[in-house]
């Protein structure tokens, strides 16, 4: 299913986020764990599923392939999509502030 904007899966969001710095397979997994402060532990099946999907949708691109390992990086489109999603999540969080206010009353 090609990405047409709208909510991203958590996996997709974090892969894009981690690829702001070009990276490859195994290190990417660690990077995601690091970026999410240990909250997101991504399985390899999910990781490669996301990578092949994002590559097809041209949200990421292979910048280096020495035949042994592929290095991926986020594309312009990918970055825009990520920023949009970030804004969306941010407004969701802001809107959600009602919960806290309500709680404090």
């Amino acid at each position, binding site marked *: 299913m090609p990405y047409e904007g709208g909510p991203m*899966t*958590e*996996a997709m969001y974090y892969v894009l986020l981690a690829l702001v710095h070009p990276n490859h*397979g*195994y290190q990417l997994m660690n990077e995601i764990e690091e970026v999410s402060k240990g909250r997101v532990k*991504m399985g*390899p099946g*999910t990781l490669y599923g996301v990578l092949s*999907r994002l590559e097809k949708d041209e949200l990421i691109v292979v910048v280096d392939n020495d035949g042994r390992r*592929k290095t991926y990086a986020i594309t312009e489109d990918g970055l825009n999509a990520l920023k949009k999603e970030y804004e969306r999540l941010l407004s969701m969080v802001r809107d959600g502030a009602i919960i806290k206010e309500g709680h404090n009353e």
Partner: protein
Amino acid sequence: MNKLRYRFQLSDLWELGKNESWFEHMASKGLHIKSIGKWLVTFEKGEPQNTRYRIDILYQPPTQEQLDVYKECGWELTTNKDIFYIFSSPENSNAPELHTDPMEQGFTFDLLNKEIKKNTIIFSIAAILVLSILFYVFFFDKEPYLNLIRRSSFNLIAMAIGYTYVLFASIRSFIAVKRIKNSLYNGIPINHKQSWKLSYFFSSTVYISLIVMVLASILTPFYTAIKREGYISKERLQDFPIPTIEEVENTKILDYYHDIQYNWSILAPIQYTIYEDGYVEGIMQEDFSGAYSQASLHIRYYELTFKSMAEGLVNDLIHRYYREYRYDWYTLDNEDMNNVFDQLYVGGRENTKLIFASSGNKVIYFKYPFTAAAAFAPAVLPKIVISATAFPPILLAP
């Protein structure tokens, strides 16, 4: 080298949970999956182990780097079949799950779902086409029962069953794949411990039936060929306790010819077609061409698998052999026959009589051309009795 064991494939591999739990079960019995063929799964006999299996759908063959990453996470590639890659990990290694995001895993079903949808449409159209042709042949033909009891009908019936199964299976897979996909989309992860027992029973039944049907289709012609009798000598005729024209006509027959054919089909396991031909001496032809006349006896005898088919078969035989001759005909009541027959139709004209009768699952057609036509009268009929125990119909001479 370790011993190999073969098992029928449990179900389609996209039923991830079922296959995974089945592989785990087999490993716990010491049978470790080695490869997956078209029908059979090969296991290697070894020590029982607690192994976790996960099936990943990969549309592109994994790169070495990818396999290394899987391995680093504790998952080793065992084998693959098409797009289905089977990874294993020892239970105690506590490797993290292969898929941690149900929705992302749902996306891997996307292309599969489309592919299966396409196949389902193609299969359904093909199956419906073939089935309607078969249905037409069997039920819109004027002689459906004669069609059904033909030897070749077995292959047609097998074909009908086969196509019905294909239709059923492809629709079922379409629905099942869509259901798995939707469930993953809704964030429900694959149940890796899904019970496989019912599927195993179901698939074994399907595979065994398929093998039986294929073998039967191949072997039936051989069996029939062995069973079939062609010309047999007059001496050997004694072995066949059927009436001969000589007995019927009570006179000497010249240029005697006798032919018994046996046939076999699922719905009519016993079928005899008997022709007797000869010339009867001593009766001057109407056109004074000679003092002989041709006499021939034609018997068709069937024992059906289902008693309920007898009535239909009698009707078909009447349709085929009676209408063909366009005789005037009349029926006799069963009561007159001391209830020997369930159905009895007698027709004919001048020196030919036709009898169509059934008793239980036995059906007979008798074409009985009389030179001594006077001998054949309704009064003779009670003496034609279909033996209740076995072939043949016995004709008691009047």
